């Protein structure tokens, strides 16, 4: 009797938890694995937690690119055409989640390549397997030490602070008539720490003193004390580097409440519209390096189409990170077609040689002088500024290396 009662008592909570977990990780359905006529592309992206929006957007964009290619007859190889299948795993935007996603994608799903992966910590976990198994991996991760001759199968498909921060800083310095000091704030994770190192370096090279640099924890809900601390150092400007749109909006409100009206940057911020929404008017004038408005007419027709489709399907805006999911699939497909095979070494080699039609227009992998290998996508860098409710493009810089290829 007691055993029956215990079982009955346990049934409901276990059922609820059982219902909740698959729901929380929805989208992580099993894929088919590599088969004849099919190439399986894996995605490792957050589908739960704070960054879940990036995951759902990445999934839609990768599937959109795959659908376009499949509808056009698939990828031509020496063995005939192959169709793309997309498999996504939730990496929870954590190292542990990234390791689980990596195991599932590479061991259980046996994907042929990684078309997109999000978050420095989970990508590092994934990379330890992709490099060992010689699986080409497209990523949005920013770490400079993720690329180079020691990691030949890793390619970054979005601009990173290494590409963006210097032109952004130079532009802001000129637009604001110059300033002498700046306070930095970032998120205390691998992405935030690596971006802060770049920011420290760039501002110092431009002769701007970094008067304070700090990292806040994920899950922080109250920003008034952080605003007070930033203002205590009396900086001429503030760079919120990797602060995500929600916290950045709250922090900008707190800064405004405490009297701040100086130049403010979100140098590695990607979600412009989300920032405007979260800041309730306090984001006016903020400069951003990775937050192009893809609904604007300055965006390519393809990007405008993707923005409209994504917004309709998921409610998310296309941003400087998730655009990489579309371009990752396109780049891999172009490389497979160039190589004529899905054999990984041939595809990796082709990736360093091709010029392909990305969402930005013609693109290629380069920046060997920075990373020691051609592993960084070359696309225009766009400096934007919040003006009213709009994200206005104020500067567009096409890398010289990309211009020389066109």
């Amino acid at each position, binding site marked *: 009797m007691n055993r029956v009662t215990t079982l009955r*008592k*346990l049934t*409901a*909570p*276990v059922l*609820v*938890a*059982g*219902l*909740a*977990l698959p*729901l*929380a990780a*929805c989208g992580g359905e099993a894929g088919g694995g590599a088969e004849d006529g099919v190439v399986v592309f894996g995605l490792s992206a957050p589908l*739960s*937690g*704070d*960054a*879940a*929006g*990036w995951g*759902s957007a990445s999934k839609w964009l990768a599937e959109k690119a795959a659908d376009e290619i499949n509808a056009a007859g698939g990828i031509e190889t020496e063995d005939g055409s192959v169709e793309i299948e997309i498999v996504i795993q939730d990496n929870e935007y954590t190292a542990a989640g990234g390791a689980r996603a990596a195991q599932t994608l590479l061991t259980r799903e046996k994907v042929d390549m990684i078309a997109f992966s999000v978050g420095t910590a989970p990508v590092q976990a994934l990379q330890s397997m992709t490099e060992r198994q010689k699986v080409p991996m497209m990523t949005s991760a920013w770490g400079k030490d993720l690329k180079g001759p020691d990691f030949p199968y890793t390619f970054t498909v979005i601009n990173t602070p290494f590409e963006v921060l210097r032109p952004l800083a130079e532009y802001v310095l000129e637009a604001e008539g110059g300033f002498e000091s700046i306070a930095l704030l970032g998120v*205390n994770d691998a992405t935030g720490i690596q971006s802060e190192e770049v920011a420290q370096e760039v501002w110092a090279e431009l002769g701007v003193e970094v008067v304070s640099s*700090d*990292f*806040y*924890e994920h*899950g*922080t*809900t*109250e920003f*008034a*004390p*952080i605003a*007070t*601390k930033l203002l*205590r150092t009396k900086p001429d400007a503030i760079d919120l580097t990797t602060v995500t*749109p*929600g*916290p950045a*909006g*709250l922090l900008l409100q707190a800064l405004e*409440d*405490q*009297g701040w009206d100086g130049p403010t940057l979100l140098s590695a911020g990607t*979600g412009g*519209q*989300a920032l405007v*929404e*979260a*800041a*309730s008017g306090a984001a006016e004038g903020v400069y951003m390096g990775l937050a192009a408005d893809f609904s604007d007419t300055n965006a390519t027709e393809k990007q405008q189409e993707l923005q409209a489709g994504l917004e309709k399907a*998921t*409610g*998310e*805006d296309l941003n400087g990170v998730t655009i990489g999911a579309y371009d990752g699939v396109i780049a891999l497909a172009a490389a497979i077609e160039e190589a004529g095979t899905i054999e990984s070494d041939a595809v990796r080699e082709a990736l360093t040689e091709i010029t392909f039609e990305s969402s930005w227009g013609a693109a290629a992998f380069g920046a060997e002088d920075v990373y020691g290998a051609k592993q960084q996508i070359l696309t225009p860098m766009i400096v934007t500024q919040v003006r009213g409710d709009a994200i206005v493009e104020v500067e567009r810089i096409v890398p010289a290396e990309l211009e020389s290829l066109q």
Partner: protein
Amino acid sequence: MDLFVQMTVNGLQIGSVYILFALGLTLIFGVMQVVNFAHGALFAIAAYTAYVILTYGADHLPGVPAWLLYIGSFAVATVLLGLIGIALYYAFFKRFAGDLISTLIVTIGFALVVEVIVRETFSAQPKSVPPVVEGRLSLLGASVTWERVVIFVVAIAVTVAVAAFVRTTMTGTALRAVTSDAEAAALQGINVTRIALVGVLLATTLAAVAGVLIAPATVVTPTMGFEFLMKGFVIIILGGLGSLTGAIYGGLLVGMAESVGTQMLDLTTATIFTFCVVILVLLFRPQGLMGHAEL
């Protein structure tokens, strides 16, 4: 001097938000011995209710003043959360009352389901809700928004009202009796089931007040409940599980610790500092500042 005042103001405004959130959490533990991880989800539902009604009002009801929409948001959120609370009570809380592990699993599961539904419905993009009152108050060189002042006043008023309810009414006395010893209360003729349901409804009403009122002072996201929940648990453990006055002291102490710690230390160490303060208090007062379950 300015810094000292600003630190104090920051601590008070943070503390008031924490108090408002923690009240419902501590009440339901006091009445039912339930570690209610669903409280964060209920709070998030209330915040999204305010977002939907305020946004709809701005788009379609231009003549209706914002304060009226807030009252409407609160009414809708109270009814909605009340219905969810009743469902949770009969489905889970009543069956697992006092069983910490089962209620923990059930409420975490419920919170995860709510998070996914909210994310699928509204996307993960942060949403902002316009403030109840505009402008800011300058005080001895420090600055605080009127919005935060309102939250502080309401937090205190709600606490006083709840405390008066449980101390001066028959239902409140019965609540205290059930909190103290449910079996003894039943032997005295108190309908424990009905009183426990009253406790749940009181907790969901507090979640509705907190969600609607805090929404304009933060950003509304599917994960906002979890973010506040962690602080909420720290506060009610610090104040004494089940104690309303403990939630006030706990909220203010954590708020002040965060405010002071942020100025003295780097932000990561400041987070640890807050927990060190909590550990230190619990070393000397393991039952929390006000002791356990003293409504």
